């Protein structure tokens, strides 16, 4: 196991090789690796700013190619630093290109329960995994433009429904301020940080404990939940459906949705 990080984390003890790179140099490291894998010449000078040596990266490139089945796990550190989505794209391209030599896959490390399910559901309904705008009536995908932090920091949105998340505890301050300024609706089993700055909070049953349904494991295996308790609160599914039905019953909504065109 090779671990690449900007600092020596506890996981480094479990790794066979630990490579410490300079912060913000993810894109450079990934791109140099892509060049080395294809046998292109790389100057030692070009490697120096990454905090690694050419020998280290050459060794890594050889190991990647020699693996019989490699997995590139990547975390949020990659897309949260300089380069953002371009870093993730570089990691995915590296894994894709390695398939010219061996079997290789890339998998994002997931912190939250069913974020993989969100990718899958958005993909099969809209064709894109996240950051999808339906504001023109058809799906458009553009990370940076339609990703939540960017939308909120720029102040593009004028209402937010937050389900299964607590951005009030984790997002940058300007984003939180925008959530406070505009009407925010929160669905959560608890009264969260975001609930406190929201206009509306609705308490819902806890997923998997008292709400049934399906969730996806990180490797995209769907698993049925087996809830053990009966919650006094409705499920998220029920509340979201009720909100949509309320809008449709009033004849409201952005586009007329004939029954035969419904997507869910």
């Amino acid at each position: 196991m090779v671990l690449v990080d900007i600092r020596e984390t506890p996981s480094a003890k479990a790794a066979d090789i630990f490579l410490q790179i300079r912060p913000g140099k993810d894109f450079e490291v990934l791109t140099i690796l892509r060049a080395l894998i294809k046998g292109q010449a790389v100057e030692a000078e070009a490697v120096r700013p990454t905090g690694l040596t050419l020998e280290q990266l050459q060794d890594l490139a050889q190991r990647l190619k020699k693996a019989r089945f490699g997995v590139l796990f990547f975390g949020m550190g990659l897309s949260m630093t300089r380069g953002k989505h371009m870093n993730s794209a570089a990691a995915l391209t590296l894994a894709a290109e390695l398939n010219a030599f061996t079997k290789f896959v890339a998998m994002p490390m997931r912190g939250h329960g069913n974020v993989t399910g969100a990718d899958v559901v958005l993909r099969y309904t809209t064709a894109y995994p996240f950051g999808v705008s339906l504001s023109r009536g058809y799906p458009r995908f553009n990370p940076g433009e339609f990703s939540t932090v960017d939308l909120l920091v720029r102040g593009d949105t004028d209402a937010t429904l937050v389900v299964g998340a607590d951005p009030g505890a984790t997002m940058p301050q300007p984003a939180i301020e925008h959530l406070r300024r505009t009407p925010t609706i929160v669905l959560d089993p608890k009264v969260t940080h975001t609930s406190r700055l929201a206009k509306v909070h609705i308490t819902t049953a806890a997923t998997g404990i008292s709400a049934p349904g399906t969730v996806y494991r990180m490797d995209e295996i769907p698993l049925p939940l087996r809830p053990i308790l009966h919650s006094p609160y409705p499920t998220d599914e029920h509340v979201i459906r009720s909100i949509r039905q309320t809008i449709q019953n009033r004849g409201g909504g952005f586009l007329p949705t004939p029954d035969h065109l419904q997507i869910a």
Partner: protein
Amino acid sequence: MELSVVQNAVCTFCGCVCDDIELHADGQRIVETKRACILGEAWFKHHTAERLYPAALIDGREASLEEAIACAAEILERADLPLIYGLSNITCEAQREAVWLAETVGAVIDSHTSL
């Protein structure tokens, strides 16, 4: 209160989604977990079937579920560019409903993946 036992319960606290957990509950709360990690055990024991929070809040004041749904519907319908965000700790069935709602109001829909 009689104990109920669920075999092969699924933990949704982290992306590993362990599916081999044994839960014992007394109707109100989970009293024992087997094979869950420390985080999973804390997650299971933390959520109870008790009514700890009001059904809904509007402007910080307690409200009924129906009032809150009507208010939420009005906010989303009125907005020029609403955003639906999160989707991580909910079921796929709820996520599908969220996509449908997004389509109905012309919203941007986004998850933790974009972070």
